[in-house]
């Protein structure tokens, strides 16, 4: 039976001549491109005209794609075309979105700018609410604030100061150039409405109980 089968195949081969190998290469290229899944040699042969040799055509196709933007790769028993590993970055797209700083962040930043060097506890004292780690981290990451000297008070708390990048961004030569309260009022920047959400002061004073007398020194003129 087996021998007979083989002879039949031979006979068929001579009857239906297989397409040239370059054509076969085109075929597997198209098959691999369009298939939704990796394709085995067996499947390729089943889909190609009689007498084709997908395995041989694949050798040519793989050579053709060496060093190209896509690779012919083996996945298990099957073959697939996929992006060359070094070009993976093209499949990612970074979009930059500009957002306004959160109210917490801008207030924290303002306090640091006006009161530097200032401890976290002092910031909280002024804001009346705790300052989240994320807010400080965000400002540090933006390089608008940095750590200043430790305060020579019990616990030696760290302080924050604004950076040169901050001054550059806001067009200031020094933090001293920031307008004082009187000027803010004159410029109509003081809202004459009681802001909401300023009721109980829930401030964590654990790390620094220092009085913050220094805070208005900037405004005494």
């Amino acid at each position: 039976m087996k021998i007979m089968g083989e002879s039949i195949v031979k006979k068929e081969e001579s009857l239906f001549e297989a397409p040239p190998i370059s054509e076969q290469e085109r075929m597997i290229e198209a098959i691999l491109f369009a298939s939704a899944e990796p394709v085995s040699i067996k499947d390729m042969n089943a889909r190609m005209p009689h007498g084709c040799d997908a395995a041989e055509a694949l050798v040519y196709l793989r050579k053709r794609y060496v060093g190209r933007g896509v690779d012919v790769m083996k996945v298990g028993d099957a073959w697939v075309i996929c992006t060359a590993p070094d070009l993976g970055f093209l499949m990612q797209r970074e979009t930059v979105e500009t957002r306004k700083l959160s109210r917490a962040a801008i207030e924290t930043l303002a306090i640091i700018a006006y009161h530097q060097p200032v401890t976290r506890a002092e910031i909280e004292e002024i804001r009346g609410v705790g300052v989240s780690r994320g807010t400080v981290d965000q400002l540090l990451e933006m390089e608008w604030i940095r750590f200043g000297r430790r305060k020579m008070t019990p616990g030696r708390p760290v302080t924050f100061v604004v950076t040169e990048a901050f001054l550059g961004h806001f067009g200031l030569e020094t933090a001293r150039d920031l307008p004082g309260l009187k000027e803010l009022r004159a410029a109509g920047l003081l809202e004459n409405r009681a802001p909401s959400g300023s009721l109980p002061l829930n401030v964590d004073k654990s790390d620094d109980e220092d009085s913050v007398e220094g805070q208005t020194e900037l405004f005494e003129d």
Partner: protein
Amino acid sequence: MTESIFEEDKSPATGQSVAERMAAEALIVDVDGFEGPLDLLLTLSRTQKVDLRKISVLELAKQYLAFVEQAKKLRLELAADYLVMAAWLAFLKSRLLLPPDPTEEGPSGAEMAAHLAFQLERLSAMRDAAARLMARDRLGRDFFARGIPEGVERTRRVSYSANLLDLMQAYARLRTRDEFRPFVMDRKSVFTLEQALERMRGLIGFAGGWVDISSYLPEGWDGDPERRRSATASTFAASLELAKEGKVELRQAEHYAKIELRKRDEDNG
């Protein structure tokens, strides 16, 4: 198919023959197969076997009217638009046959015929174009898109911005907030009127003579000035309350002198 109808037309059937009924059915099928009168006209025009540009609109109108006649004879219900077209074509036919009336307004018969010919040609052209379009190699049938598309992974980077005005406004908001802070009692430093009353009601019974009301201040409330103020105020208010009730008497020698309190005896009253 349509031509066969007109074959029947040339040899009108007598009586309700089987052939007639079959013809009637064929007609129904045919009318159903047409997409409106224009489509029917286009099909009829094909029987002229000439270029649509050289079509005889008069001949076409006759054919259409004959078709409608035949349908009527077979008592077939024709859709209204087919009948409207028939009326229009009858009008066109008369215009084409009669010499033009100079008083008549609107386009001439020839113009109307030309426009009809144009419409038929245009419809025919669009049919051909549609067929050619559909015969093109088509995506998903003849050519194929990528089978395993790789999506572009989108990463979002957020850049934050703020300007000097934002900064100053934020600071101004913070610095002025205390001015408008709603008054909140700090309970720790408040000795209430109720507390003072309760305390004094318990104590007045023990005293016989005039006593400085400041001696009624609760323990621990005379150190801190804030607490002392609150306790003094409530004790004084409680004294007034007790005086009003007739339980005590109050006296003060002069302005800013100490205020003294004495239990009011029923006998003294």
